[in-house]
């Protein structure tokens, strides 16, 4: 395993009195794609929120490139090189598509050429270019997701946290998105991915993490996770005759 870019240590926290994370611990090797899988409600998205400072943690630490970034502001985290593309729909409906993308560069240092990056992003997602001046809320579900990905990557971060990007995307777009993640990895960017589309995701990943009830149960090379019979049966839809607990 190469040097970890992100080290998540013993996270404990949740919403109000409800504890969701019970000591989640894992690390993301630099320059890898790491995929987190697990049942619905396992706490995957909650881990991301915790890493990105959106959740009050009762215990635990988040180390990024050797530096403790627990509880830093989102702006500081973006500045450090982490970006987060959350689950669900997260656009600014009343602004135009182009303005939405431009907003992805808010935290950018002054010396980068934002307009050029916006153009580049629009090249990657031709649908968005076609609808650049429309109000973002009129986009279809999948188009909105593309918009979010384009916006999230505008800062060219070193670590991408991306939560279920494939929801709502057509198979062709899912392929493209995964290809894009692979390209990012080639450029040395690390990716931490949550996917329910677990087979395809693990196929492009270096490492796989299985999260259950707020704990990391399995951390291993992606192909080994994929081959693990328990995982196949329980989380990849391998066996349909699973017994209800």
């Amino acid at each position: 395993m190469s040097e970890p870019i992100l080290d998540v240590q013993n996270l404990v926290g949740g919403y109000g009195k409800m504890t969701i994370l019970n000591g989640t611990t894992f690390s993301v090797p630099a320059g890898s794609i790491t995929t987190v899988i697990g049942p619905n409600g396992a706490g995957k998205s909650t881990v991301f929120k915790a890493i990105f400072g959106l959740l009050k943690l009762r215990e635990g630490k988040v180390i990024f490139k050797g530096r403790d970034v627990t509880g830093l502001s989102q702006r500081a985290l973006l500045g450090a090189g982490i970006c987060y593309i959350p689950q669900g729909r997260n656009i600014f409906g009343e602004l135009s598509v182009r303005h939405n993308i431009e907003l992805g560069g808010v935290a950018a240092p002054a010396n980068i050429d934002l307009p050029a990056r916006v153009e580049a992003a629009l090249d990657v997602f031709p649908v968005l270019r076609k609808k650049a001046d429309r109000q973002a809320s009129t986009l279809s579900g999948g188009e909105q997701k593309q918009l979010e990905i384009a916006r999230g990557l505008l800062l060219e971060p070193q670590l991408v946290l991306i939560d279920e990007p494939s929801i709502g995307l057509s198979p062709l777009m899912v392929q493209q998105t995964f290809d894009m993640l692979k390209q990012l990895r080639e450029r040395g960017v690390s990716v931490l991915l949550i996917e329910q589309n677990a087979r395809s995701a693990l196929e492009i990943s270096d490492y796989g993490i299985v999260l259950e009830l707020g704990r990391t149960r399995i951390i291993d090379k992606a192909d080994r996770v994929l081959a693990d019979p328990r995982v196949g049966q329980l989380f990849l839809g391998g066996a349909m005759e699973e017994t209800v607990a």
Partner: protein
Amino acid sequence: MTAILDVRDVKKSFGGITAVNGVSFDVQEGEILGLIGPNGCGKSTLFNCILGQLVPSAGEVRVDGKLVTGQRPSELNRLGVSRTFQLLQVFPKLSVRDNLILAGQEHRGSMLSRLLGPSDAGLTTTADQMIGFFKLEHLANEPAGGLSCGQQKLLDAAMAFMGGPRLVLLDEPAGGVNPTMLGDLKERLIAINRERRATFVVIEHNMEFVMSLCSRVMVMAEGKVLAIGKPDEIRANPAVIEAYLGH
């Protein structure tokens, strides 16, 4: 035999943009029709036109041969047509159980009996069965807004079935749902389809799910029907591969 759902030449435009551009198809009772197509091709808009959430710019929609174009969603629901949504649509501050009871209550008794009768309209048992099936027991009394995305998606699907519908339009029910649970969901859909001859139209980008569930698949592109046929035919259709499936 008349089709349970008959869509004729439906068009919908927003300002200068035509999202749905003359779509016609019908669905026979007991069928499971898949609806696929690239992002932004007009699938959700078509659903909204059928279900009265949007008024189509042109065209007709019939349910059981009865013209329903322009009818309100609630009226359509009373005819036994229900749906799920692509984006999360639950009642965030109500408990999961109340969400489900709410989903079924208007199909019980009259307005007056709902005022004077039992407060759960006799639906607690049914709701709890649903909760059990989707493994939400520990959250039954929690507000639905606190569920994870995948759980909300499941709740949304569960709500669509509370009223015992004859025709259900599902908009990406699999998005974000764990594959194992998805298998259960598919089994469940098939069982309901067999037992109650309920009819489904399913928008989905998960090909495995669509192809194994549906008896027929319709492909849309740019607001029009590109192809319609058996899953195998569609999978092999070069136009579909190019526009939608990729290699």
